């Protein structure tokens, strides 16, 4: 069985500080149009609830970006990272349309798309992805998906999120209070 890295996201513990989002920008130097990691809000009015979910690329088992890229810019690395060879990107935005999670993002200045690399260069240097390193709550955990699943129970989709069966995202979410039955 091939290996697959993934993220465990403790939404129940996340309080939406967005440090992960800015740490990613600081690490990857992405342009203002592009935030590889974003913190999304899940709010309800009655009852009043507020939840936040940090998400970047889910390095899917069945990556739609990769399947739809006409230039073969996306590859699935042996460790499961869905990696974009940025040189091969022609900015056609097929991947942007294909990804249900909004992970690939188009930079109009550059005319190209980029997305989370799982901090491949840091991983290869034996470090954690920068979002994981920076989260003050320790609410993003990176590792082998099977090992994460064994350690942290959780969901792969929440109400309002894309169906996990589409792309089989490599994530485990511990849902916020409002999502727990």
């Amino acid at each position, binding site marked *: 069985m091939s290996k697959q890295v993934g993220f465990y996201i403790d939404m129940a513990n996340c309080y939406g500080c967005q440090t992960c989002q800015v740490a990613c920008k600081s690490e990857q130097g992405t342009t203002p149009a592009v935030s590889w990691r974003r913190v999304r809000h899940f709010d309800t009015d009655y009852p*009043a609830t507020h939840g936040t979910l940090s998400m970047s690329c889910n390095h899917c088992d069945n990556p739609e970006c990769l399947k739809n890229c006409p230039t073969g810019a996306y590859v699935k690395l042996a460790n499961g990272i869905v990696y974009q060879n940025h040189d091969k990107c022609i900015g056609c935005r097929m991947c942007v349309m294909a990804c249900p999670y909004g992970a690939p993002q188009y930079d109009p200045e550059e005319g190209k798309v980029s997305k989370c690399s799982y901090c491949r260069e840091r991983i290869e240097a034996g470090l954690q992805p920068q979002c994981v390193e920076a989260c003050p709550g320790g609410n993003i955990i990176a590792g082998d998906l099977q090992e994460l699943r064994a350690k942290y129970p959780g969901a792969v989709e929440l109400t309002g999120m894309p169906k996990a069966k589409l792309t089989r995202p490599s994530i485990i979410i511990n849902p916020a209070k409002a999502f727990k039955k």
Partner: protein
Amino acid sequence: MEKKQNKDKQLSLSRRTFIKASGAAVTTAAVVGGVDVLFDSPDVVDAAVDLSNAKTFTSSCAMECLHHNLKGYVVDGKLVKVESNCDDTTKACLRGISRTQWVNHPDRIKMPMLRTGEKGEGKWKEIGWDEALDLIVTKIKETQQQYGNQGLAFRSGSGNFGSLTNSVGQTFFNYLGGNTPIFGSLCCQVVSTTMPAMIGTRTEAMRDTIPDSKYILVWGTNPAVTMQSYFPWYLDAMKKGARMVTIDPRLSETAAKSDEWVEILPGTDTALGLGMLKIIIEDKLYDKEFLLHKSSVPFLVDKTTGDQVKEEGNDTGYLVYDELSKSIVRHDTPGITPALSIVGTDITDKYTTVFDLIYEEAKPWTPEKVQEETDIPAGTVIRLAREYATTKPAMIIQNMGGFQRTEFGSYAVGIHIYLAIFTGNFGVPGAGVCDAGGVTQAIKVNPAIKPPEASTIAKYPAIPAPKFGEYILEDKPTKINFLWLMTTSLMTQFPNTNAVKQALKKIPFVVVADNLMTSTALYADLILPSTTIFEDTNLMASIRHQHVQLMEKAVDPVGQAKPDLWIFTELAKRFGFGEEFDKTPEELIERCLEGTGITIEQLKKGPVTPIPFPYIPYKDGIFKTPTKKAELFMPMWKEKGFNPVVTYIRPKEFIKGDQALVEKYPLMAVQRKINRTIHSSFGTLPWIIEAGGDTPHALIHPDDAAARGIKHDDKVVVYNDRGEHHAVAIVKAHIKPGIIALENGWWEQQGGSSSYVTNDAVEPLGGGHCCNNTLVEIKKEG
């Protein structure tokens, strides 16, 4: 010394769990998810920021926050990346990481800039430092000749807590002979006056034992945003079974994580607290032993004078009624049983006790009456009182929250302490009234510059900070001819911004030393480009972090920006008292550290903490007051003509207050802090704008919005007689109806601060800021 390390879960994850990529040149094929996948990625992947030749430096995130230790990476003389330093106990946030963009901001002020157009018009010419400094000397001398030193005003703020920053400025003005002070913290003035008077000190960090608490009452504060790096400790407590309840008009980020959100009308917290205290007293849920021996509540009060009774000629010789000997004795007489209440004794014609006085104030606050005043259901009031008093240890999270920026905030601070003292919730892990604290609770840090003789510094009447605009415009208490501002932005923080703006225009010469064109710098006569962290050497040994930190110079300042220390040194030399100033930062840091046992050499290796972990303030209920007991009777309030024990006074600018005003402005506005800024700092950094937007928002309940035809994302104007605040509406049931939440800290260039509408009353007991007692109306823009 044991140090708490952040218990991040990722630390337990071995790096070996990562599987390295297969490497270049290797081209293999596999079937993944039904698609053919080629592993043909390049072997070497360059990081976006090349750090292979980087030098690293450490500094401290120096504004009014938690002063996280930061590591800066410098390549070819340029700061290229900032991250949390692993030597710190908790982690820096998005703002700390964004420091790279502060230092390298394209809008940095690079040269002294002299106003050429009208004030606020934005027309400037760059001048050299010599010209700027000579001009300042001339303006100071002119002011001294015409108005005396009283005509000089100086205000530093919370933009930099470094030891070589604000205090250097005040010392400079002290050497000049003094200045008119602008008095009062906009943030926590009434905590600073009330808490030390009651328990001896403040800024003693209570955060270490939050995870030990069983009941956390977050009262009018939002630690998930304002103390965010250690907010996980609250969640740890909850995981261990603690109940967390948040009292707030808004479903704050903290309320959203709590077991219960209790919606309250702003400014009525003291009524709730008194109602809880009534139940605690009447149901005998109080800790009698603690009250008798650790607090002042048995102290006798003379009914005629209204003062506490003391032994002749002894400042701490307070008297109590001993139930055993049926006589009046000193409170610290061994073997006595002091009476809490003297009701039923034969001394009631002449005396009462602090306990009896406090009960008198609490007694009228039945749950029904509390409900009427606060809008909190009577049943909830009863439950909160019982839960808080019986689930021990219980901690009240005060944290300088918005509850105390109200018209009688001192009483609101006081009632928290009363509740904790009555239930014996002090001096043990997991209990207390949580405040931020730092190294100054353990060591005395000397001022960087040797101060002049106290007798040479004139003391002048102050301008109360919340009334800055009005006082300047009316020349109260005196005409201000020269104002120096540093590490602060009045235009985004001081209430009644229109009056502040007019005041800045009126003062003939305003110097603003800052790094960026702040909202306040717009109204300066002369802007001095000052350095920011990583551009100068400084010391962080302050009240918000448990570590003493060396702030290293990592890069040369942009343009001709200079450290505040350099600016004041050059001026001091021109005035002929430069000798004490004209030293290297390292020499001055050594002076700061003298007698602390900490050396600059130690700090070069990393932050040093002089505080044991876990730190438990007022351990075992030994307070730092003159009597070593919690003193709940406040002579200082009595001197001002107010009740010396906590009482509830209904605010004026309040839905049940001034009805003529309510008719015009029927909504209450509260101010919230947001994660994009600390006050107004960081507000124009690109990453911050990407994460937190560039437009102020106003949160309004769907019912209030519908009544005004306001829809989500509509542009709105919030207004009252003071001015207007422009924002975008968030229509959500995340706030109590009748109240709107405005965001603090937006710059003029981003549409302006919510302080345009905020109440500029001065809290009468402690001199605080009352922005959360503000009445407004809101309408669709256009």
